């Protein structure tokens, strides 16, 4: 089984044991133990909600710094498409790439090419899976499916994301030029913690092999100093269709389908997936789902307000004069196929009988609890507390309000 990595972690000294994260985690992955938050790794999907809500800055996600790029013969940066509208006004994306290059990279890869490649493949791939097809772009969403909606596996498009496609293309190119694997450093400039985790996971993947992920907020101040904000607005080298991938709904526009749903915000996604699972969502071809509000432009490491960023992104796209118009080769299909999801099992016990016993016990405990979901016990709800007790993760006495003294 693959190991589960996480990028979201806790700085204990800052945590005062309030219940903000406990109550706001959409997948109930947080508990308060001995006055400090604890993240349950097997439940966490790295969506970053805890980072957003923590008033004390105790939850953090740490990516690589620019210093980590030292030591490679060839240093390539893949900027997320969300970077381009982060400057409060419309700026020529080519200027932004130039500025990035000056930070010490040998190449700034144009991710919009990978977006155009992916869009072309997607047109075919979405017809091969069960309807509605589900996008693979947001790693937190894939984790959510692995964990809570494994039956939606048949809906997931079996293709890599533009980010992974970029890395695969770069690695292939420099290997062909004679560089050794460990001489090539490939870094993703990420809008969110979710991709930091994903890239850690991909570190040892031969084909894709990232060497790190740098948060956009990390390079932003340096970028501002070198960025030429006054140049010509029209650009001819970066694809306008590729840039569509930055906001919720853009993918579908890039593929040219109308019959789609674009859902953003992790709680909305969970609600929608519940409906898909019940067979309630019929006649929909494609679902783009994002953990963050308004899609990737809502990422935690971004500076611009996501709604304003979307306005700017649309302006930039309108001024674009170029798309890659990728011609689809069959080799692309197999080359960029993705691995099947990892199915995380939520079962209580390995054998059925024990699981039944635990659930019976849990239901008994639920009936003894007040049902107020106060969070004082350190679990996010009475139901979650009962589950923790039968799993041996909490003590019945932790509930201050238990009826009949727990008898």
């Amino acid at each position, binding site marked *: 089984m693959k190991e589960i990595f996480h990028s979201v972690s806790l700085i204990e000294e800052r945590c005062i044991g309030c219940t903000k994260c406990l109550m706001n985690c959409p997948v109930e992955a947080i508990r308060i133990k001995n006055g400090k938050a604890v993240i349950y790794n097997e439940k966490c999907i790295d969506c970053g909600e805890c980072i957003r809500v923590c008033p004390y800055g105790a939850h953090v996600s740490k990516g690589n710094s620019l210093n980590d790029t030292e030591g490679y013969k060839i240093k390539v940066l893949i900027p997320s498409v969300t970077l381009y509208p982060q400057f409060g006004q419309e700026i020529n994306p080519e200027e932004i790439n130039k500025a990035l290059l000056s930070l010490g990279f040998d190449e700034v890869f144009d991710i919009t090419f990978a977006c155009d490649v992916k869009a072309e493949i997607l047109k075919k791939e979405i017809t091969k899976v069960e309807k509605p097809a589900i996008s693979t772009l947001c790693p937190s969403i894939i984790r959510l499916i692995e964990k809570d909606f494994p039956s939606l596996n048949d809906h997931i498009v079996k293709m890599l994301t533009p980010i992974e496609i970029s890395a695969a293309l770069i690695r292939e190119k420099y290997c062909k030029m004679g560089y050794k694997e460990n001489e090539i450093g490939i870094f993703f400039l990420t809008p969110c913690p979710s991709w930091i985790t994903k890239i850690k996971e991909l570190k040892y993947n031969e084909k894709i092999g990232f060497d790190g992920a740098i948060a956009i907020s990390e390079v932003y101040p340096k970028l501002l100093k070198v960025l030429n904000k006054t140049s010509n607005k029209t650009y001819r080298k970066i694809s306008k269709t590729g840039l569509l991938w930055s906001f919720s709904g853009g993918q579908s526009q890039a593929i040219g389908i109308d019959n789609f749903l674009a859902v953003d915000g992790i709680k909305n996604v969970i609600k929608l997936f519940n409906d898909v699972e019940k067979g309630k969502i019929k006649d929909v071809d494609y679902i783009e789902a994002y953990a963050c509000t308004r899609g990737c432009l809502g990422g935690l490491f971004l500076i611009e307000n996501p709604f304003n960023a979307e306005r700017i992104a649309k302006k930039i796209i309108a001024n674009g004069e170029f798309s890659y118009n990728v011609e689809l080769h069959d080799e692309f299909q197999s080359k960029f196929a993705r691995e099947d999801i990892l199915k995380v099992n*939520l079962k209580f016990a390995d054998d059925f009988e024990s*699981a039944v016993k635990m*659930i019976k016990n849990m*239901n008994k405990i639920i009936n003894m609890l007040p049902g107020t979901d106060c969070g004082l016990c350190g679990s996010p709800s009475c139901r979650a507390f009962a589950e923790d007790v039968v799993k041996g993760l909490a003590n019945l006495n932790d509930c201050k309000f238990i009826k009949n003294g727990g008898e």
Partner: protein
Amino acid sequence: MQELLSVKYDVESGDFIRGGEASSSIKKLLQQLGIKADIIKRICVACYEAEMNIVIHSYGGYIEAKIFNNKVEIIAKDRGPGIENIDLAMKEGYSTAPEYAREMGFGGGMGLPNMKKSCDEFYIDSKMGEYTEVRMVVYF
């Protein structure tokens, strides 16, 4: 075969907002038991259709899931008008759903046929003016 565990949820007539919650709870239970994803999906679809039938057609009822060590049995029973002609109701596309429900995308006449397709055993019983009871079995 001995019943190991059962859960029962009331379903209210006309409650389109909460209709579906019983199916969600049953899905979670099956996940905790370690039932395979494809089997859970079949149960989930069947259960949801049954639940919405109670919401749309009846005066209220309940959904019960009984767990055995080799199967789950879903019972959906309502108080209501009953079904006049069961054979006709089982035909694809046949519907007696009111206009408002159809406008909401329900009542396409696929409910009962889909339920039957999703499970291994399907039984339906109804008495005019009294009740409809659907019993569905899916083997693990």
